[in-house]
């Protein structure tokens, strides 16, 4: 089977990894990797940080070298957007908007996610931007250099990363978050409060628990954001960072089961039992529990890479379940937030303050079992917990509350 043509739709972190891993594991047939952007595959995380600051150029973000694709005989097709799929019992055909088409024996969907748009009046004004790809980052950087006021709508990772980057360049920044606190879906209140305090100290102003209701403009360009409580925030530039929607339209139109993402099993197989779907576009069983009890989407580099590696085993006929400890990072100015594991809002929190100012680790417990850690400027704690979770180690909450005992000894000692 691995002599057929493998078509990978989507050339982001997941698609690139899958193509490379399939080849490494013994896929000997042709592999074609199709991306809709005109650039060779690149890393997205720096777009809100070093790239936005103009410290790196696009070539420095390349995920793989030209030599790699040539040596691995992976044909990279850039700038083609697949908009039609037809699936059969033994393969299928994909067609691009340009009319070009490819037949395949096996298909992998790594189509990613796209930013949600703000459903309020004025969202189509100039200067109202999102951040997903390098084109978005170029537009954002261009505007940032000429405005004095940025309003970020959405207090999530991307919003806060851009807020910190902009504030450091002297732009006046306000962040609007409809929920009562920042990062509510991803971290405990203790971590969210520490993150907000760090940004406060950098001069960023927060408006939480209030929705934007209208964007005002002049001559077609945004000038202000009006909030539900009547506040008017001056805005020469607005960044909307309110989450992303999985790009599953192609899969749905081809008859694959989708439910907020392409529904896949632990082997990354979609409902036809043949197509694999990976990364941000996939709705997958929780990789931390066996048997998996919940389904989720994971938008992270870690998931893109690790699910792709697991999916490659499916394609070459030596299938392994996708298991792992998901982890996430977000650099927001001088603040380094790292999260290992998946916590639920109701999981308990044990706060450990570090030796240095601004250093904090929050351990999350489900009963007496450690399930996650949220680390601020504490990379050693983060690595220790990620390793402990992978090894199935835990420590009693009572021990963890003693900040004098290092996590390494508590979790990884013999």
């Amino acid at each position, binding site marked *: 089977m691995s002599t057929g043509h493998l078509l990978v739709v989507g050339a982001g972190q997941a698609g690139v990894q899958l193509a490379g891993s399939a080849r490494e594991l013994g896929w000997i047939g042709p592999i074609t990797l199709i991306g809709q952007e005109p650039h060779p595959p690149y890393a997205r995380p720096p777009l809100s940080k070093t790239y936005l600051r103009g410290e790196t150029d696009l070539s420095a973000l390349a995920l793989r070298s030209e030599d790699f694709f040539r040596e691995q005989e992976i044909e990279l097709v850039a700038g083609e957007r697949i908009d039609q799929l037809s699936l059969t019992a033994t393969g299928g055909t994909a067609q691009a908007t340009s009319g070009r088409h490819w037949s395949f024996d096996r298909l992998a969907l790594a189509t990613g996610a796209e930013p949600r748009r703000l459903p309020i009046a004025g969202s189509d004004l100039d200067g109202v931007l999102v951040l997903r790809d390098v084109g978005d980052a170029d537009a954002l950087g261009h505007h940032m250099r000429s405005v004095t006021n940025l309003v970020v709508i959405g207090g999530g990772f991307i919003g806060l990363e851009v807020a910190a980057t902009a504030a450091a360049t002297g732009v006046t920044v306000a962040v609007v978050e409809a929920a009562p606190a920042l990062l509510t879906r991803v971290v405990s209140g203790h971590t969210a409060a520490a993150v907000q305090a760090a940004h406060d100290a950098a001069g960023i102003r927060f408006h939480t628990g209030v929705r934007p209701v209208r964007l005002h403009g002049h001559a077609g360009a945004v000038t202000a954001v009006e909030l539900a409580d009547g506040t008017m925030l001056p805005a020469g530039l607005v960044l909307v960072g309110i989450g992303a929607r999985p790009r599953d339209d192609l899969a749905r139109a081809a008859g694959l089961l989708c439910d907020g993402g392409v529904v896949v099993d632990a082997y990354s197989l979609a409902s036809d039992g043949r197509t694999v779907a990976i990364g941000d576009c996939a709705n997958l069983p929780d990789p931390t529990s066996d048997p998996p009890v919940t389904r989720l989407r994971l938008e992270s*580099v870690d998931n893109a890479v690790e699910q792709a590696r697991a999916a490659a085993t499916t394609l070459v006929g030596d299938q392994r379940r996708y298991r792992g400890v998901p982890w996430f990072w977000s650099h927001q100015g001088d603040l380094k937030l790292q999260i290992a594991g998946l916590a639920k809002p109701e999981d308990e929190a044990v706060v450990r303050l570090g030796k240095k100012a601004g250093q904090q680790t929050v351990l999350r417990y489900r009963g007496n079992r450690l399930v996650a850690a949220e680390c601020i400027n504490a990379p050693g704690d983060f690595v220790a917990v990620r390793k402990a979770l992978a090894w199935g180690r835990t420590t009693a909450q009572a021990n963890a509350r003693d900040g004098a005992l290092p996590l390494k000894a508590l979790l990884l000692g013999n």
Partner: protein
Amino acid sequence: MNAKVFYTQPDGTERVLEASPGDSVMQTAVRNGVAGIVGQCGGSLSCATCHVFLESGEFAPVSEDEDDMLEVAATDREDNSRLSCQLVLAEGQEVRVAIPAAQL
């Protein structure tokens, strides 16, 4: 003039890559598909998945964050352990690194 990096796998196989000055030992490995160097965070000192044993080559000393992360690396730390994202190559530099058995 390009730098040159020699990567040795745990089974003894060696791969030699040319690298542009300014790139790191991690970037050069990942872009060219060297097994065993993962580098998920892209070099932002966040993931500790690019651990190597530095056999020859001079670099800036280990920072506090790097030190903290190496202390709990998946493969036990040695005196010459480094995170290869921190090994930024100079023009014409020749470097030898050995790749540990596990990164995660």
